[in-house]
C-alpha cells in the first residue's frame, strides 16, 4: 500500500514554523520582484513608479542629508501627544460607562453620535478656531480616535464577567473598590489591545492632518514632493509611515506580553 501524498492545502492543519517563515518571505520577495521587473523593463513610467532601490536610496538621502528626521519626530510627537490625551479621557470614562449604566445612559447617546461624524470634516472649522499651529492637528487626531476608544473600552468593560463583580461584592468590597480592584484590572488587557488598534487609526488621521494643513511632518513632506514630481520621496514617506506603524504595533504587543504574564498558559 503506498502512502497517499499529502496535499499542499490541508484544511485547518497548522503549518510548521519553517513554512510560515518561508511563506512570509516569499510574498515580499514576489512583491519587490514584480516591482523591480516592472520598472526595469520600462513597463511602467519611472516618473510615476520609481524602482524600489531608488526609493530606498531616497529614503536614506532624506534622513541623512535633508533633515527628514525632524519631520518624522514631529509626526511621532503629534501622534503620541494626541493619543495620550485621548487615552487620558477615554480610559477612565469608558471604564466608568461600562461599570455604571447610569453613566452610560448619560454619555452614550453623545459619544455614539460623534462616532458617525468623520473627523476630517472638522478640519476647516478647526483651522479657523486654532489657526495653523500644532493645536488643530492635535485636535483632529484627538477627535478622530477618542469616541471610538471610549466605545471600545466601554464594551470591553461591560464584558467583565458578572460573577467577578458579585464575588467582590460578597467579599465586602464597596463599589469604588469593585471598579478599581476588580473591573479595571480585569479589563486592562483588553484596554491595551483597544489602544493598540486605535493607535493605528491615529496614524491615519495624522497623515490626513499633515497633508491638508501642515508644513511640517511626514505628510507635509509628501505633499511638497508631489509638487516637484518626486514620486520616490512620496513612496519614501509611505514606507516610513508603514515602518513606524509596525514598530508601534510591535511595541504595544510587547507591552501586552510584559504587563500581563498571567495570560500566558502554563
Amino acid at each position, binding site marked *: 500500500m503506498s502512502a497517499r501524498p499529502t496535499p499542499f492545502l490541508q484544511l485547518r492543519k497548522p503549518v510548521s514554523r519553517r513554512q510560515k517563515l518561508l511563506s512570509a518571505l516569499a510574498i515580499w520577495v514576489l512583491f519587490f520582484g514584480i516591482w523591480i521587473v516592472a520598472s526595469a523593463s520600462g513597463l511602467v513610467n519611472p516618473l510615476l513608479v520609481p524602482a524600489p532601490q531608488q526609493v530606498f536610496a531616497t529614503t536614506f538621502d532624506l534622513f541623512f542629508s535633508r533633515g527628514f528626521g525632524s519631520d518624522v519626530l514631529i509626526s511621532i510627537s503629534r501622534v503620541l501627544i494626541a493619543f495620550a490625551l485621548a487615552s487620558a479621557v477615554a480610559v477612565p470614562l469608558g471604564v466608568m460607562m461600562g461599570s455604571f449604566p447610569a453613566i452610560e445612559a448619560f454619555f452614550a447617546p453623545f459619544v455614539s453620535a460623534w462616532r458617525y461624524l468623520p473627523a476630517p470634516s472638522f478640519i476647516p472649522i478647526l483651522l479657523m478656531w486654532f489657526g495653523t499651529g500644532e493645536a488643530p492637528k492635535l485636535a483632529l487626531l484627538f477627535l478622530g480616535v477618542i469616541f471610538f476608544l471610549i466605545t471600545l473600552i466601554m464594551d470591553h468593560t461591560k464584558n467583565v*464577567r458578572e*460573577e*467577578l463583580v*458579585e*464575588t*467582590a*461584592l*460578597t*467579599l*465586602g*468590597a464597596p463599589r469604588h*473598590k469593585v471598579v478599581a*480592584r*476588580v473591573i479595571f*484590572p*480585569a479589563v*486592562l488587557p483588553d484596554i491595551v489591545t483597544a489602544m493598540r488598534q486605535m493607535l493605528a487609526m491615529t496614524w491615519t488621521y495624522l497623515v490626513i492632518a499633515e497633508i491638508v494643513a501642515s508644513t511640517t511632518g511626514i505628510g507635509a513632506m509628501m505633499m511638497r514632493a508631489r509638487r516637484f514630481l518626486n514620486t520616490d520621496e512620496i513612496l519614501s514617506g509611505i514606507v516610513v509611515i508603514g515602518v513606524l506603524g509596525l514598530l508601534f504595533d510591535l511595541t504595544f504587543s510587547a507591552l501586552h506580553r510584559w504587563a*500581563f*504574564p*498571567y*495570560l*500566558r*498558559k*502554563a
Partner: protein
Amino acid sequence: MSAETALEIREISKEFELSGGRKLVAVEGAGFTVERNSICVLLGPSGCGKSTILRMIAGLETPSGGEIVIGGRRVEGPGRDRGMVFQAYTSFDWLTVRKNVEFGMQINGVPAAERRERAERFINLVGLGKFAEAYPSQLSGGMRQRVAIARTLANDPEVLLMDEPFGALDAETRWLMQELMIEVAEKTNTTMVIVTHDLEEAIFLADKIVFLSSHPGRVKEVIVPEFKQGARIADKERAVKLDGYSDLEAHLMRLMREEGRGKE
C-alpha cells in the same frame, strides 16, 4: 450540633418582571432556618428558584416579600458576612493564588501580617500549598474552585454560600471536593448553605436538606438525613454503604420525579 440559628429565611418571595409587563414568580413564601455550624443544602429540580434564594441571601437580589435575617440583622445587600462561591470560575486572573486569597482581607483592611498568615492557613487547608505563587490560568478547574473557597473562608464570613460549586467539575474531582468541604466544615466550624441539583451531593454534604418545589419555588420538605446519626461522614464511599442512605436517595428521587411531572 447546637441548635443556635445562624440564618433565618422568613417567607421570602421573588417576582421577576418579564418583558410585556408579565410577572414571573420564581420564589413564593419560602422559609427555613440554618443552624450555626451546620451545612444546609438547597435541593430541587431546575426552575425551583434555589439559586434565586441563595442570591437573595447573598444580597445580590432583593426579595419581593419577606425578609432574611443573619445574626439578628436584616439582609439589605451584599456583605462580607455572607461570602459566596459560584459555579463559574471567579479567580482573579491577574493575581496569584496567594493574592487571590488575601483579596477580601485586603479590601476589608486586615493588617498585612495577619493577612499573610490567614491566607497561608486557608491555602494549606484546601491543599494548594505548593501553588501559592501560581496564577489561576495555570490551575485546573478543581484547583480554581479551591482558590475561591479559600478566598471566601479567609475573609471570615458568618455563612459560606455556594451555588452549584462543583457543577462544572468532572465526577472524580467533584467527589474530592465534596470530601474537602466536609473536612473544611469540621475544621473551621463554618455555616454553609449549598445549592445543588445533585442528589448524591446533597445527601453526602447535608446536615439538613431543604427540598424545593418548582414554579414557583416553595419549601416542599425539610429533611434531616437521620442515617448519619448526627455526625458527618468524611468518606464518600462509606456514606453510600450506610443503612438508610439508599432509602433517602429513593425518597429524594421520588420528590424530584413528582416535581418533574408537575412541570410537563
